[in-house]
């Protein structure tokens, strides 16, 4: 049954994504303290009300961040339940890791407006404030509808429905036997049943992986630096990075592989892929491989920085680089032209291009600004999506877990069908978080369609 559950501990980012140097992650619910204690040290399992502590957040042995946590005991909290607010550094990587740790420790990602819903239900909001709650959740739901539209209403929806149909079909196999007064139906064909269960589980997991693969907020945006050989790609990367990450050499073709580094600008993470130059006269197998990888990186980028040596005239390699970047760019990706080596006399003109110099630092601030703006847009568009994705991921993961238990059970000698049915019902209930309840009538319809039962 798809009912909201106020007894679960929920977690979400309480500050707007990506706007500041600090972020607050809020946990609320009966298990808020124990959940937080699972990934912070020293753990505060029974903290005093309004206790403030510096806590280390660790992912296993790895230190993720030093944070400040504030503990509120029920009912004196925003939601009226036990609540922990963890203030961490605003990097999306840190935020994402903290959220993941909370979920791994038993919290579930909050639905839009769920904190406010709890506050409302626990009488923490007055009527005037409460008026806004419905609108908040409605807009959250609408945004969720919008955000998930392509995924959930389109092909994704069809795939989830297909999962449900398959699960209903399997359940009907069991229920037809359980509800057969006359035991006329032949026993369940165990091998076929297990095969279908395995296939269903595989498809469920594949779909779950699809949700997890959603980009943007989790990974930061992908920026690729491309351009003709010796156009200054590695120098720009190093300048933005602040240290010599890439090997810079005046000899063309030094960077034969792609280099990937994560750069944090204004609290955003930007993934840079410096690519091997797109050399029009490439010959050796090594260079060809480098170019192939560069092409792949360009096609996956959110932003393409197309570099041209501003101190040299246009070469065939520059033309090729521009053409290839245009061809390879993904829909929606931004292509930004940069003329490098601005400290040297200009040999080309391009009004729209940014002129940079790694030697003087000219133009670097403009590049950063563009990256920040693009990142903000990704956050804005994707702000609702991760919640939906997380919940769908959870639903699909839950369904897959039930199917795993079903497999274990059905492998036994003389499996108990009524228990097997519980796991399929569990899987359908998990999918219900996406599609809503599966009514018993849907299972009955399948039974009557496929089995000759009854007198």
């Amino acid at each position, binding site marked *: 049954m798809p009912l*909201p559950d106020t007894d679960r501990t929920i977690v979400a980012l309480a500050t707007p994504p990506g706007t500041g140097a600090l972020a607050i992650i809020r946990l609320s619910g009966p298990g808020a303290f124990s959940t937080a204690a699972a990934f912070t040290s020293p753990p505060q399992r029974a903290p005093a009300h309004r206790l403030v502590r510096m806590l280390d957040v660790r992912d296993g042995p790895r230190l993720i961040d030093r944070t400040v946590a504030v503990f509120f005991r029920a009912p004196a909290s925003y939601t009226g339940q036990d609540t922990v607010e963890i203030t961490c550094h605003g990097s999306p990587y840190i935020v994402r890791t903290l959220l993941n740790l909370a979920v791994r420790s038993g919290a579930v990602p909050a639905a839009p407006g769920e904190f406010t819903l709890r506050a409302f239900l626990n009488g923490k909001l007055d009527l005037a404030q409460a008026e806004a709650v419905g609108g908040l959740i409605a807009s959250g739901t609408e945004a969720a509808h919008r955000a998930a539209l392509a995924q959930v209403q389109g092909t994704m929806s069809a795939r989830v429905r297909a999962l449900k149909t398959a699960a209903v079909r399997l359940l009907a196999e069991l229920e037809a036997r359980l509800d057969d007064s006359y035991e006329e139906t032949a026993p369940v064909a165990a091998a076929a049943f297990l095969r279908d269960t395995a296939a269903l589980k595989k498809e469920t997991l594949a779909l779950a992986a699809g949700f997890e693969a959603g980009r943007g907020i989790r990974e930061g945006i992908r920026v690729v630096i491309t351009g003709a050989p010796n156009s200054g790609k590695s120098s720009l990367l190093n300048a933005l990075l602040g240290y010599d990450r890439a090997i810079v050499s005046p000899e063309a073709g030094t960077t034969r592989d792609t280099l990937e580094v994560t750069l944090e600008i204004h609290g955003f993470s930007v993934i840079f892929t410096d690519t091997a130059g797109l050399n029009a006269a490439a010959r050796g197998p090594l260079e060809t491989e480098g170019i192939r990888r560069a092409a792949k990186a360009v096609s996956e980028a959110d932003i393409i920085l197309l570099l041209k040596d501003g101190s040299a005239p246009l070469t065939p390699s520059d033309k090729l680089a521009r053409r290839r970047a245009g061809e390879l760019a993904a829909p929606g990706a931004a292509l930004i032209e940069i003329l490098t080596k601005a400290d040297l006399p200009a040999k080309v003109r391009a009004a729209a291009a940014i002129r940079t110099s790694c030697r003087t630092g000219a133009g670097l601030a403009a590049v950063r600004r563009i990256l920040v703006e693009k990142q903000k847009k990704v956050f804005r568009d994707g702000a609702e999506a991760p919640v939906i994705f997380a919940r769908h991921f959870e639903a699909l993961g839950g369904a897959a877990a039930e199917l795993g238990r079903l497999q274990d059970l059905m492998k036994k000698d003389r499996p108990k069908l009524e228990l097997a049915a519980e796991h399929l019902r569990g899987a359908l209930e998990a999918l219900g978080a996406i599609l809503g309840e599966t009514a018993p009538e849907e299972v009955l319809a399948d039974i009557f369609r496929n089995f000759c039962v009854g007198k």
Partner: protein
Amino acid sequence: MKAFDYPEIFDVAVIGGGHAGCEAALAAARLGARTLLLTQDLDTVAQMSCNPSIGGVGKGQLVRELDALGGEMAKVTDRAMLSCHMLNISRGPAVHSPRAQCDKKLYQFAMKHALERQGGLLLVQDEAAELLTRGGKVSGVLTARGTRYRAAAVILTAGTFLRGLIHIGLRSFPGGRYNHPPSSLLSKSLEGLGLRLGRLKTGTPMRLHARGIDFSKCEPQAPDSPALPLSHFTPAITRRLLPCWITRTNAKTAAVISAGLGGSPLYSGKISSAGPRYCPSIEDKIVKFPHHGAHHLFLEPEGFDTEEYYVNGLSTSLPEATQIDIVRSVAGLEKAELMRAGYAIEYDYCDPRALDYTLQSRAVPGLFLAGQVNGTTGYEEAAAQGLVAGVNAALKVRGEAPFILRRDEAYIGVMIDDLVSKGVDEPYRIFTSRAEYRLMLRQDNADLRLAGHGFRLGLLGPELAPVFERYRAAAAELAEKGKTKAVLPEEGPWTLAKARATAAVEKSYASYIKRNQADAERLKKFEHLEIPADFRYAHIKALSNEARQKLEVNRPLTLAQAARVPGVTPGEVQLLWVLLEKGSKNER
């Protein structure tokens, strides 16, 4: 003819003496209501119009629940039992279901006698013609003979009698059951009161004479030994029981049926009402599953003192001539004599979505409906509704809180919730697959779940209450710790051996039941959140179109029901929750 007022005024008047009517009248009278039972024919009270058996998968659980609540059906079944089987014994205990064949006449007389012995219950043979109302509320019943019975509540259990129309082949004639006239006056009265009527269809197979059956060609199905009583309160079944017999259809049967479909009222389009899919006619089975070589047939005796046999599995409305050919195509039945032909029947039912959880009409206060008239099928489904309606009619007259069973408490709760929240599009039969808490709703723990209600309501005599309390404590202790020091009687409904058996089942399902209970607990919160009748889904933009339409049609009464509507997602339930809470806070 001038109407006259019957001198006494009743608390509860029950129209109909079938399985629903009997339980309704007994329950109301046992709660102390002055009760009237009005039936067309006192000699057909509790008539088993179709098969001679009580129970079955899901249905057996219903009967055990009814018994734990102080109903009569299981006791009467035990008195009339001629064969019995615990079904599904090869599966887990959650789906073990008792089923017993009965001597139909013994059953009727035993029930009639139970009615006659019940204090405060008057039995009258007359036909109800019109429901009387005053100020929009029920005030009594006017009969065909012109008597006005005044009553504070009326329970209608009309079965298949409302505008009943019987079909055999392409011939049709009015009837509520073969050879019994339909109730033709009442439908108009109901429509006049604003009830929505629809048509449904069901059917019954032919009956054969034993001397035309070659039992040596059939496979005997021996009764269980020892025979387990259906009632908690029957010490043992001591009489000798009879076997049933199994034979099967064959390719020739299929050929006869295929050739005869032209004479079928179902396939010629003469009957368009929906029939039960789980209780298909033999022609349906042959048409829909042409590759099934053989269909099982069960030959069940209709009584100890009769040669009549019921052919379970051959329900049909084909012409009588074809019916003879069908029967005689079957091994063992080559020389069969048809005593009664099979037939289909169409009848009016009232949309159960117009009822509340006590089975009271939302449009006409004081009018309760129970049984087949609500679109169900089966004696057990009818009887269970009868008890719920009887109890609630009596409670209402006394001005007391209603008696409502939840889905996690009883199959009765599952059925009534299904009926009032989803309605029916074919005759409704209970299935274990309808129960989300199936592992908790077992025949072996029906008493643990429900006898407490039975004692509280006064349906069960107080003398057994202390024993039951000790039994309940012992069973809980055994399930939890594996041992108990409780002392229980050696005999009677509640022994230590029974407590051990139930505790063992409970233990084997423990981890699953724990999860079920947590779900049920969460659900309870939402059962209390009522959705106003005039709630407007059209205004809620955030609902998906699908959810909006389905909610508009189903009009759930509570948030829990709304969540059960297919296609409504958790986000939408949450949104409705906020809107409902907001609405109620606004009122305050």
